């Protein structure tokens, strides 16, 4: 069974790599879009198999309870996003925002991104994970800058500088971890292997671990978009192609947070080191408060949802920082649901901005009248992201707030109130966008809204009924994260 598993692991990694290469050379853009979708779909299939087939962890790759969920999730979102991006990019070609050559580049980069993220998730080696995340960063940088408008370039440049500084921090942290480990484990690959690190971490030098975690949190936290390291995120979301915004919010942030989690488990296994919880809690809370107020003055619809991503990443970090089985469970679930919801919202927003020909919310009005599907889709999405039932985020926020209030009321009150503030901003915008007299172009939607509603359907289902297997999984992981 192990070899079967490793075969599928190979598939998960190789399919994107190969298809990236292919897409780089293939000229015809219709075909490439289809190929892109196909590759993503195959990857998804292969990933789902990993639920059953587990390869024995090697020095470089591992499949364990924690990451398999992320793998499946990211491949799924990758697949739906590719479906969406097919129609989206076609439209971009028509209106001439993109040229075929850039399109080819785009598809290649897309698959490279998939590849990088899968590697990062599957890697059993801190160094390898670092490399993968850097690769993912660079590809997204290039994609954000793809429109070559000054604003896009500026966003990409900002993203690149901040990102690479973060990456540098992360590397430094990684080295420190190695230093802490090799004194105990001895030199060589073992000192960089997850499974080993988690096992042996109690014997590590606490001081080194502290320093390392600090750098890692800042480094990968830049990717997660935690305030005050967030600056790149809103612009990158606003200026890049919408599918990329979806992937960014839905996946890349998760991957970075996943890295932080890995190190957190190493950290908290060590009695001497300081508890990582408070640090994460404070950063997360800061992000939530900041983002929720930043939502008010936004005019660019994509940038607004970028900030909402910051907010939710803050919530998740907060939850994991609080720790405890319930909070961890809520954090994991929230992570999953947020990436589904947010990418769904970005699908919707992408269609809207294409139909209306603008991203400025002042020029978008009365969508439920002019474009019922998009309008109600947006209403649904905002309701979901704001944590209203029956959508699943209600469950997670319920768990987080209640458990936190029982333990430290002040934090819970701050969190809850800023959630309310954020909701106020989103609803204010939604009122303008979805209701009132329609305004702007009424040309029909051509892009398919299937991916969007697929995501929302999943989110609603999760809110009402969670499959027992998944629950058991999450609970196991939650206890494992302690």
């Amino acid at each position, binding site marked *: 069974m192990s070899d079967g598993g490793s075969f599928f692991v190979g598939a998960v990694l190789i399919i994107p790599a190969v298809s990236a290469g292919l897409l780089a050379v293939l000229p015809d853009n219709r075909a490439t879009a289809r190929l892109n979708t196909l590759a993503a779909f195959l990857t998804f299939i292969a990933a789902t198999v990993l639920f059953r087939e587990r390869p024995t962890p090697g020095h470089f790759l591992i499949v364990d309870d924690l990451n398999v969920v992320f793998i499946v999730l990211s491949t799924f979102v990758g697949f739906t996003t590719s479906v969406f991006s097919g129609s989206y990019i076609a439209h971009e070609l028509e209106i001439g925002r993109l040229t075929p050559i850039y399109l080819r580049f785009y598809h290649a980069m897309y698959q490279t991104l998939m590849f990088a993220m899968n590697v990062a998730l599957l890697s059993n080696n801190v160094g390898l994970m670092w490399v993968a995340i850097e690769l993912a960063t660079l590809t997204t940088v290039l994609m954000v800058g793809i429109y070559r408008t000054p604003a896009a370039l500026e966003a990409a440049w900002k993203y690149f500088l901040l990102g690479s500084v973060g990456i540098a921090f992360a590397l430094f942290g990684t080295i420190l971890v190695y230093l802490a480990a090799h004194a105990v484990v001895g030199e060589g690959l073992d000192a960089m292997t997850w499974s080993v690190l988690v096992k042996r971490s109690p014997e590590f030098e606490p001081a080194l671990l*502290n320093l390392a975690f600090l750098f890692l949190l800042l480094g990968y936290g830049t990717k997660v978009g935690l305030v005050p390291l967030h*600056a790149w995120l809103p612009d990158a979301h606003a200026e890049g192609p919408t599918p990329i915004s979806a992937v960014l919010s839905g996946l890349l942030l998760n991957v970075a947070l996943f890295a932080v989690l890995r190190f957190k488990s190493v950290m908290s296994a060590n009695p001497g080191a300081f508890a990582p919880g408070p640090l994460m809690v404070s950063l997360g809370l800061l992000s939530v408060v900041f983002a929720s107020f930043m939502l008010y003055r936004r005019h660019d619809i994509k940038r607004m949802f970028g900030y909402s991503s910051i907010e939710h990443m803050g919530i998740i970090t907060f939850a994991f920082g609080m720790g405890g089985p319930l909070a961890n469970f809520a954090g994991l679930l929230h992570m999953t649901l947020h990436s589904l919801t947010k990418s769904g919202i970005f699908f919707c927003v992408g269609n809207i901005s294409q139909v209306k020909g603008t991203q400025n919310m002042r020029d978008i009005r009365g969508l439920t009248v002019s474009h019922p599907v998009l309008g109600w889709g947006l209403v649904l999405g905002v309701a979901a992201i704001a944590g209203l039932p029956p959508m699943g985020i209600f469950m997670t926020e319920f768990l987080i707030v209640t458990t936190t209030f029982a333990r430290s009321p002040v934090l819970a009150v701050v969190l809850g109130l800023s959630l309310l503030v954020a909701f106020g901003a989103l*609803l204010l915008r939604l009122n303008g966008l979805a209701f009132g007299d329609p305004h702007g172009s009424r040309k029909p939607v051509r892009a398919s809204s299937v991916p969007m509603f697929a995501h929302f359907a999943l989110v609603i289902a999760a809110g009402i009924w969670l499959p027992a297997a998944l629950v058991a999984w999450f609970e196991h992981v939650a206890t494992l994260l302690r």
Partner: protein
Amino acid sequence: MVYAAALCLSGAALGIAAASLFIGHSLLSALTLPVGLPWLGAHFRLDSLAAFFLVVVNLGATTASIYGIGYGRHEETPGRVLPFFPAFLAAMNLVVLADDAFTFLFAWEFMSLASWALVMAHHRRAGNAAAGYLYLIMASFGTLALLFAFGLLAGPAGGYAFQAIRAAPPAAGVAAVALILALIGAGSKAGLVPLHVWLPLAHPAAPSHVSALMSGVMTKVAVYGVVRIVFDLLGVPPWWAGALVALLGGVSAFMGVLHALMEHDLKRLLAYHTVENIGIIFIGLGLALAFEANGMRAAAALALTAALFHVFNHSVFKSLLFFGSGAVLTATGERDMEHLGGLIHRMRFTAFAFLIGSAAISALPPFNGFVSEWLTFQAILLSPGLPQLLLKFLVPAIGALLALSAALAAACFVKAFGVTFLGRPRTDAARNAAETDRWSLATMFILGALCLIAGILPGYFIDALAPVTQVLAGAHLPGQGQLDWLTIVPVAQSRSSYNGLLLFLMIALAAGLGAEAIHRWASDALRRSAPWDCGFPDSSPTTQYTAGSFSQPIRRVFGTVVFRAREEVRMPPPGDLQAAQMRVRMRDLLWDGLYAPVTGLVNFVADRLNKVQFLSIRAYLTLVFGALVTLLTVLAVWH
């Protein structure tokens, strides 16, 4: 047709609930579905309390569905109403049935969401979007408060099932905090002052049958939330809780009716009366809390009965009144009373039903509104037994507030009915109104009949409430149903008693006698002519008293203080023929004092923080750098 389906379902639910209420032991003792929170599941339970509120909910739901069959035809955008109407009904039922914190809040917030969608149904009308916004924000605020409350009750381990919470009653301090949070949370939904501001905006914005549901039923669901948490989950309350609740109730009653008097939008007037009646209900609840805290079980049972009976009554006549206003709205397209008048000639049946509703809500015998207020008064008269001095001072004041608001309510409905239906039509819209459809009329008459029945046979209803109070207060009123002439005797025959049936019969008899005598011996000739009006020539309808002028004396008496009402009259110089002008300015001090600062603060902070969006890359790098350095220093110091 959606409404028909909703009708059948809610009717069935009504039957079940009523059955389980009257049988006494519940039909659905406990049910757990594998949905909702994974390791918890969704618990449902139908005890007598839930059964009673289920009756209220589904009575409203049934009538609203019947009404909707007719009213729905006039709906311009049915696509925005039909999908959410059943969802709204279902959510309200779920709230009442839920037996664990998660399911409760899930249904609670879903109820808000569905009703918000219904409020936004006519999103193009000016102000509705703002109303919906305020509504959903306030609703979420309430839900947040309830989240905190349940977080306290459930504890970090997450014992969300009500069973678990009952099993481990919280410590006194925790209970106090949870109680206040629950009051904030459910009170904001019920429209308790000062959390009521959304209500008079949101309720009228919805289609009328939904307004009826929101005002008549959803607020009751909120009351249910309070009762469930405070009476059931928290154990024995502290006595000051009673004082607090009763005081809030009294203030709400008074403020609500004053606002209503100043209002001339028919539906908004009704919405403000919802605030008033919720206040009355909370007075009853507060008294019950105070009695229970002092171990006066019988008195607690009386107060609780009064409150719950008023819950039922208000849901009945408030739905009736909203249906009536909906009929007026469809007939004339007008909600502003100043543009109506004389409708009684064109819509006699609607007018009749509305008159019954007005009499009932003004607490006039022999209708049902009077009975529950009478019971509340009886409860107040029992309260000298309370030991706490604060209560001794507070309760009579609350009694005065209650009496005042009852009288003002009568004045308000003389205005509402008189200006809308009586007199002469003020606009063509009113002149050309036509009677509404049969379905609506049928609904209104059913409810009107209920008002009368509950008014003249209150004993049976009180007996039906006995199991509820037994569960909550540990006592119940003596059985009323078998007393001769169906008198109701809350405490003792010598102390106080009321017999609606007898009064009704005597009034009917007396009126009949008078009529008969006159018919027999006096002339019954009748001439029609122009009104005399002290010999003034027949003047145009615009010279009639309007809603504004009707309430002017009362505005001068109360409004100058409460609303800072200022009148300015501009008289043209003598001989000048232009019309004199009079303008009234009123300010809602509550809004200025409580809500404006909050919005101002949020905007202020948002503006300040917004500058961060426009920094240079170097500045962002500096942020990162600063974060790193600070953390490093922290680490260095930490060693």
